[in-house]
């Protein structure tokens, strides 16, 4: 292949306690789209951050057009023509399109900015790239897709030859996705090399030429996209057969645990109704901003709702806050364990009993001995790997931290579990442990409502999947009916 546009050779990177990348090599040709896939924690973002100069690699080489380069900062990377478009776009929202596009080299006249000239040259840049945007628009008024297009235009204008897109379609509808793919194709023709990171495998098959799979910091392989298939790719990503990875059992469904009727938060969710029975996992599927998270947060009393009723075991529950929800037997696993799940500077045992303090000891007194017993029990049962229960939580791995949040939920004795991304950013082994615990809970008569943005997890663990789009329920599928295509289609209805 001659000398590739970009080569990353034998890249390794270690963080305290984690080998984030081990001897990973990738190659990108001019005018090529390389897919980069892997589960959360596989090492994709570390690799990209090394390429962008955010992190320093421990060992390895980066070559651009066969020349070894040393990327110490994002500005080094930008100088070499590398541009990373992160999921969260960094635009200057209070400024205009022209200012965003030309930031750093606005034309001046007698020391003042020449606005007319600026708008003219911005219009010219946009026209050449066939992009229909008014240079005078305030960027904050643009849609996510328009901002994305603006960022791409800015990158190309600054002579970027290597473009990395991290989950570019996460917040896009179907139409905008198609428009983005159009732009990617025209970039290819101009010889730009693109690294395309996505969890949406269907898109990876549609737009990439080759695809590299990472798992647990290692490169598993690179495939020619047109010769690969979905099952093969997923198998490489999770490292084992799907049936083995998702320990789904046949559990009979029992009584109704929770009935949600017409749940409404003005302008966010509208008339959401569904029920949860014991023994089942109900998946709430939707895109970013669909309102699925607001449903879960409202059920736990974290978001106020204006309309609707929540019935728990036959009686109407007034969920005014987390303590009320817990009293009704509803437990919540937050999406971000560090933000809402754990007191990181406190001990494992303190965290495990944190949602159950009032029941540890009689009267006003807290019983340390009882806490020790309870915590020790859960550490064993949930298989938390920790030196002892007095260890501070922030010294443990993500997987073990997540298990502590789960143990905290179990300790409350809840029957209804609201799980927001239960396996986000944790290692494969811990994932399987958590799936096992979820199945155990169902077998013991609990019911789980789960949000997951990992489609394989959703398709394999949920008994029923309810699709939420623009705040409404657009479809419901049984486990047997559901496919990736059907789910994604329902999100655009």
């Amino acid at each position, binding site marked *: 292949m001659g000398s590739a546009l970009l080569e990353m050779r034998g890249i390794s990177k270690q963080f305290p306690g984690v080998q984030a990348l081990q001897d990973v090599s990738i190659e990108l040709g001019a005018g090529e789209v390389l897919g980069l896939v892997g589960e959360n924690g596989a090492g994709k973002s570390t690799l990209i951050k090394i390429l962008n100069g955010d992190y320093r690699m421990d060992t390895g080489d980066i070559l651009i057009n066969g020349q070894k380069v040393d990327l110490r900062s994002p500005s080094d990377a930008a100088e070499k023509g590398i541009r990373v478009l992160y999921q969260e776009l960094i635009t200057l929202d209070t400024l205009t399109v022209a200012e965003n596009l030309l930031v750093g080299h606005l034309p001046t006249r007698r020391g003042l900015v020449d606005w007319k000239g600026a708008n003219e040259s911005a219009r010219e840049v946009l026209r050449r790239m066939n992009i229909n945007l008014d240079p005078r628009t305030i960027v904050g008024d643009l849609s996510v897709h328009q901002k994305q297009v603006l960022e791409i235009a800015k990158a190309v204008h600054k002579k970027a030859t290597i473009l990395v897109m991290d989950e570019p379609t996460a917040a896009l509808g179907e139409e905008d996705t198609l428009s983005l793919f159009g732009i990617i194709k025209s970039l290819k023709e101009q010889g730009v090399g693109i690294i395309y990171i996505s969890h949406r495998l269907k898109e990876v098959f549609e737009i990439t030429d080759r695809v590299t799979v990472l798992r647990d910091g290692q490169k598993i392989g690179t495939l020619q996209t047109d010769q690969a298939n979905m099952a093969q790719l997923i198998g490489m990503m999770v490292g084992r057969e799907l049936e083995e990875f998702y320990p789904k059992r046949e559990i009979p469904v029992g009584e109704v645990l929770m009935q949600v009727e017409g749940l409404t938060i003005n302008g966010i969710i509208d008339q959401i109704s569904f029920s949860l029975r014991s023994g089942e996992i109900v998946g709430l599927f939707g895109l970013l901003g669909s309102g699925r998270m607001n449903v879960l947060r409202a059920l736990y009393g*974290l978001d106020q709702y204006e309309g609707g009723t929540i019935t728990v075991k036959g009686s109407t529950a007034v969920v005014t806050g*987390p*303590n009320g929800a817990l009293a009704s037997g509803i437990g919540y696993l937050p999406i971000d364990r560090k933000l809402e*799940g754990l*007191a990181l500077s*406190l001990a494992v045992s303190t965290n495990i009993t*944190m*949602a159950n*303090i009032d029941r540890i000891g009689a009267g006003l007194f807290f019983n340390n001995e009882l806490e020790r017993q309870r915590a020790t029990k859960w550490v064993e049962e949930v298989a938390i790997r920790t030196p002892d229960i*007095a260890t501070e939580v922030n010294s443990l791995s993500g997987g073990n931290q997540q298990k502590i949040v789960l143990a905290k939920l179990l300790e409350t004795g809840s029957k209804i579990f609201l799980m927001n991304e239960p396996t986000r950013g944790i290692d494969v082994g811990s994932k399987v442990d958590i799936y096992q615990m979820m199945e155990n809970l169902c077998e013991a008569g609990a019911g789980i409502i789960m949000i997951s943005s990992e489609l394989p997890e959703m398709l394999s663990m949920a008994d029923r999947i309810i699709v939420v789009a623009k705040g409404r329920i657009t479809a419901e599928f049984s486990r047997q009916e559901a496919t990736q295509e059907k789910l994604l289609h329902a999100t655009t209805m």
Partner: protein
Amino acid sequence: MADALHVEPEALGKRRKRLSSTLILFLALVGMIAAFSVLSKDFYSFLNISTMLTNISFSGIVAGTLTMILITGGLDISIGGNIALTSCLAAYLFNLENPVPGWALIPIALALGAAIGAFNGLFITRLDLNPIITTLGTMAVTRGLGYVLTKSRSILIMEDVTGFIGRTVIPGIQIPVPLVLLVITYVLLFFLLGRSKFGRKVYCIGANQAAARVSGIRVNSVKFTLYLISGITASVSGLILTGQTAVGMPQHANGVELDVITAVLLGGTALSGGKGDILGTLAGVLILGVLYNGFTMIGFRYVHIRVFQGILLILIVALYELRDKKKT
């Protein structure tokens, strides 16, 4: 003392580490007492030690409650104003044409403290206002009201109930009443913070308020209670000071915030929240008291010690900051 140290709240994390730093503080205290005893022949006398302990009682009591507030990541700097207003109100009521009887001054003072604490707590929890700004405002309001009430004068209050609280030495055991109140407060707070369910919630809120809320802890109710307790203990301190000086005046406890915050931080409570305990604060209060008294005994003046204390406060914060940075 070593026995007392063993009953630290268990398994809150960093346990062994904190044990040792509290121990270091108490060893430093013993060292200072020894040093001042050598430097000044008057230091190590029953009269001086007793005076010193009486003098630290009123600020020591509020330092105890402030420890809990700091652990939740909050702050209460209205305590000085609260103390001053309590003394002014007591003296004012006692000097009316129809004087309010001495026994009635106690519940009135406590009610005043509770009202001030509730005011702080309400604004800080319900409106989510910044605790520093809120209590700074309350500080100005309370001290200002003290000036209004006394027409900016000192009012004599020769009265027996406050006199008992502030001046009496219990005969036989020779222990001053303020010291008894200090000990009672610390025993209560020790159990409240280190042994009760409430105390556990205080630590959880300090370590991660959002997680505490999601865990069903009623964050606002806990915080409100803390500011309420802080207001009440400040009025107890106000009664002690009133009795000690037999005067109600708006300049009382001027700058006590500095003493109290220095003592609490010296005791190992972190400004960032989630960390600290009552024994550490007790050590901080005692060390500060010994330093003040000792430096006075060897000839320094109050103004000099004040400069030194300001520097000490910054040094303490810097030292703990460096230690925490080193660990991460």
